[in-house]
């Protein structure tokens, strides 16, 4: 972001951002939900040019967090710094952070080009420069041919792309996207996701995106933060997060479907109905514990190796079929080989890839515990 310079007399963005400062630093942020206790003591930082995705279940406070960063929701404690500048007490227009709603919000009284020119005009950027930048931004989202159109005549995906172009036209340090793909048909999601990635690569704002869709997070994020119980429970690159959830609550949120109760022994071994496992990661002291792993970490064996069980149900999904296998007290979901599904009631054997297993201390309510 160090190439950002003031373009006009009213350009309120800082002239230069220190090279070492993260694009966004949130420290101890506490945000109420109306009269209810809300987000508590959140801290994280996002580097310039980074794509940072916050995931959490519906109602977890993801939108509230974005709005607080944007200056649209009040905070009761903590600080928000954009580009090294404390903006906690500044109004939204002076934060250098653009917030985009879930559904694109275009000004209905302005043509597409004038929509994209809007942030430049309010900053007093001279007309020729503003026009050139707006057209560049439209071109970056492949909407340059729609400059003269009334935004009400655009399709949903096109509106998203124009909203993105408008957001980056002013070259903000920070782009805040609130579930940008949630309202789109699956066919349009790829289109808009590609536009987000492409425009972010070109203009390099730090991007903070919230979603409840883990696939979306995995596809877009450099790092993912998981919001559980009003706090950030874990922050990690997607591959690491999905492979190594830090807590049982995070594992459950991530939909790591299989849980097996057992005992964590000294030396890292885990004894359970599946046998003795050597988990890829183990948290907590020896004793009563829960092993979690994704269905993909388990397989039905053809040769009676692995733990014996029987199929209690079949689960058919768009990306494949899984068998719910009862092994001792645990019910495990295991992918079924294409074309050879077992029947409900069949006796089967289940083997697990130990390296993909993570063990946590037992918490109340753990399955099979």
């Amino acid at each position: 972001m160090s190439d950002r310079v003031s373009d006009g007399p009213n350009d309120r963005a800082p002239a230069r951002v220190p090279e070492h400062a993260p694009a966004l630093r949130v420290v101890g942020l506490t945000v109420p939900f109306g009269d209810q206790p809300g987000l508590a003591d959140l801290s994280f930082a996002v580097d310039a040019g980074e794509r940072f995705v916050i995931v959490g279940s519906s109602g977890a406070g993801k939108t509230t967090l974005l709005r607080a960063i944007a200056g649209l929701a009040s905070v009761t404690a903590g600080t928000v710094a954009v580009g090294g500048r404390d903006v906690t007490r500044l109004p939204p227009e002076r934060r250098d952070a653009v917030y985009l709603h879930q559904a694109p919000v275009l000004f209905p009284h302005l043509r597409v080009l004038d929509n994209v020119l809007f942030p430049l005009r309010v900053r007093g950027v001279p007309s020729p420069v503003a026009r050139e930048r707006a057209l560049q931004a439209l071109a970056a989202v492949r909407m340059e041919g729609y400059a003269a159109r009334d935004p009400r005549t655009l399709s949903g995906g096109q509106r998203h792309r124009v909203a993105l172009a408008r957001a980056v036209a002013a070259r903000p340090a920070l782009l805040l996207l609130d579930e940008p793909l949630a309202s789109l048909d699956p066919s349009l999601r790829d289109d808009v996701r590609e536009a987000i990635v492409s425009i972010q690569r070109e203009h390099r704002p730090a991007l903070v995106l919230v979603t409840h869709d883990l696939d979306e997070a995995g596809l877009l994020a450099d790092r993912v933060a998981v919001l559980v119980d009003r706090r950030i429970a874990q922050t990690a690159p997607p591959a690491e997060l999905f492979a190594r959830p830090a807590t049982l609550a995070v594992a459950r949120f991530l939909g790591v479907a299989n849980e097996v109760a057992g005992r964590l022994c000294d030396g890292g071994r885990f004894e359970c109905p599946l046998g003795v496992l050597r988990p890829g990661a183990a948290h907590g002291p020896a004793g009563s514990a829960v092993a979690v792993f994704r269905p993909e970490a388990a397989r039905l064996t053809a040769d009676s190796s692995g733990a014996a069980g029987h199929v209690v149900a079949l689960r058919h999904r768009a990306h494949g079929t899984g068998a719910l296998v009862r092994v001792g007290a645990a019910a495990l979901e295991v992918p079924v080989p294409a074309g050879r599904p077992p029947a409900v009631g069949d006796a089967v054997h289940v083997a697990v890839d130990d390296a993909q297993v993570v063990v946590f201390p037992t918490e109340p309510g753990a399955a099979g515990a």
Partner: protein
Amino acid sequence: MSRRAAASAARGAAVAALALSAGGPLLLLLLWSVSRDWFFPALLPPALAGDAWEQLAGGSALARAALTSAALALLCGAGAALVAFPVGRAIARLRGWRRHVGAAAAFLPVAAPPIALGTGLQFFFLTLGLGGTAAGVLLAHLVPAAGYLSLYFLGIFTAFDARVEDEARTLGASPAQLLVRVTLPMLRRQLGEAFALGFLISWSQVALTLLIGGGVVRTLPLEVLAYVRAGQDRFAAAGALALTVPPLLALAAARFAARRTAVVAA
């Protein structure tokens, strides 16, 4: 006659009756405004005269009253819209009991009969030295007009997409830029309608003008009333017809400007 033809004829008769009930009195007024010595049982006026219209067009009391009415109504329409726009917006942003109290406060001057409102305002305005002045009458007209328009804008801002303003702020617009570049342009038509509504409230006001103006401030409705009481039907009819012009123009404008209300984002 088939059943369908009978139904069609009945519909035609109903529309004709409606048109006659609306247009008939206006036509009669027009005829009356140019008639001379037209008494029962004559079906048509025996002679015509244009002096009532000449007076309305010239510098007579009727013309002066029409000008006073127009000036008061223009100022009332603009003033009430100016006051009601932020008031309606503020009430729309309130939640729970505060919103109900705000809406009730705006509704009070609308619900109160003008004669009751005027009686209450009279004492207050006389104390302030505004009795019998155009300024006093204007302020009195503003009370119900601002109430009506506050309720009107409450409805508008309840439907207004607040996300538009949020996004404009984060795009860099100051509150003033937001108002000038986003909110006002988006609500241009609604502002026009509000102005017209405020204009019409003042234009047709009788009780408040009489009570606060004390007969000194002469508006067109008061002149028409005076002509009716004096039995000068030709002048009363011309004045009454002049009174109908702004409402008809407002209706026509509303009819032709009835486009999609852009209070939501594209």
